[in-house]
C-alpha cells in the first residue's frame, strides 16, 4: 500500500507485466516510471530513484476484518473465488513464478513475515513467531514499534510506541481487545489505536506500515534486513 502523491503530483499505477526478482513491477501513467512493488522504488524512467511513501494497512481474514470493523466498506465483489495463487502459496518449495532460490537461509523462503522499514533499517518479523509471543516491543531504526497479535486468526497490529515524548510499553487488557500501557495506565483500543480510558484518553497510536511478504521476496530487495526472533 503506497501513497500516490509524490512531489506535488498524483500518480496512477498500472501493471507493467514485468517481474523483478519475481515481484510485481508497476508503472505510472503520468511519467511512465517503473516502480518495484516490494520497496516502492522508482527503478527506471523520469522518477528513477524516488521512493513511494508506504501506507499502513491491516492484513487479515474477512472473518476477522468484519468482526473488528463492521461499519467498514469493502471493494464490491460480484462472485466468489479462491486465490489464483492458492496452490503456489501453500507450496514451501516453489519460490516465485519464475523460480528463485532462497539466497538467505535465516528463514525458509516461504516464511510469511511482516517487514518494517525505518530510517535505513529493516526488520523482518515472522508472523508465526509473533503470534506465539502475542506482543512484541522492539525498535527498527529510531522507531519504537509494537506488534500485537491477540489471536491466532486475527491481524497482527503494528503501532508506533512513541506518544509525545514518551515511549510506552504495553500489556493486553479488556479480553485482548485493548492494550494498557505500563507508564500511564491508559487503555488503547487495538482495532484503531485510540486511547479510550485513562490519562492519555483521546490520543491515538500511529499505525506503522508493515509489508506482508514471503521471506525470499523481502530478502531479494532488503538483503541486509534484520530478522526478529523471540528471546529464547
Amino acid at each position, binding site marked *: *500500500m*503506497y*501513497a*500516490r*502523491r509524490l512531489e506535488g503530483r*498524483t*500518480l*496512477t*499505477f*498500472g*501493471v*507493467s*507485466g*514485468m*517481474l*523483478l*526478482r*519475481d515481484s*510485481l*513491477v*508497476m*508503472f505510472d501513467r503520468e511519467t511512465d516510471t517503473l516502480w518495484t512493488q516490494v520497496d516502492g522504488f522508482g527503478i*527506471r524512467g523520469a522518477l528513477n530513484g524516488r521512493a*513511494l511513501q508506504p*501506507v*499502513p*494497512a*491491516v*492484513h*487479515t*481474514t*474477512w*472473518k476477522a*476484518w*468484519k468482526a473488528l*470493523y*463492521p*461499519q*467498514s*466498506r*469493502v*471493494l*464490491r*465483489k*460480484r462472485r*466468489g*473465488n*479462491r*486465490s*489464483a*495463487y492458492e496452490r503456489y502459496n501453500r507450496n514451501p518449495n516453489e519460490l516465485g*513464478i*519464475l*523460480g*528463485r*532460490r532462497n539466497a538467505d537461509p535465516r528463514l525458509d523462503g516461504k516464511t510469511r513475515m511482516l517487514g518494517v522499514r525505518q530510517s535505513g533499517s529493516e526488520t523482518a518479523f515472522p508472523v508465526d513467531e509473533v503470534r506465539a509471543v502475542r506482543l512484541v516491543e522492539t525498535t527498527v531504526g529510531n522507531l519504537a514499534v509494537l506488534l500485537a497479535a491477540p489471536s491466532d486468526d486475527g491481524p497482527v497490529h503494528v503501532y508506533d510506541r512513541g506518544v509525545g515524548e514518551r515511549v510506552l510499553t504495553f500489556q493486553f487488557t479488556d479480553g485482548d481487545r485493548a492494550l494498557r500501557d505500563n507508564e500511564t495506565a491508559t487503555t488503547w483500543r487495538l*482495532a*484503531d489505536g485510540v486511547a479510550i480510558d485513562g490519562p492519555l484518553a483521546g490520543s491515538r497510536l500511529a499505525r506503522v506500515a508493515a*509489508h*506482508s511478504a514471503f521471506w525470499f521476496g523481502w530478502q531479494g530487495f532488503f538483503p541486509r534486513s534484520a530478522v526478529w526472533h523471540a528471546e529464547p
Partner: protein
Amino acid sequence: MLMLKLDLKTMAATFVASILAMSAMAGQPGLTEPVQVLPRDAIPAIDTPQFESVEEGDRYLADDELMIGLVGETEQRAYSTWQLDNHEIVNDVFEGRPVAVTW
C-alpha cells in the same frame, strides 16, 4: 482485434522463450533487470473502485479470504487480495488521500 490477439500470442511466446533462455544461462531470471512476462495492462488495475457494506460483501467473501484494509480517522475500507489477484493494483482515494492498494 484478432490481429491484436495474434500479436499478443506471438509476444507471449517470445517472452517465454527469452525467459527460458535466461533461465538456462543464469538460473535466476529477472535478478537485476525486470523481465517482461505479460504485456503491459494485461492484468488490469482498478481505477474506479466501487464499494459496498460488510453485509453486502459477505455474500461473496469467504471467511478465510485474505484482506488488506485501511483504518482511517473515521472510515475503514477493505479489499480482497484474492479478488485483486486479477488486478494487482487499485488506484483509490481514501479519506482524501490518493493511495495505491497493492500488497
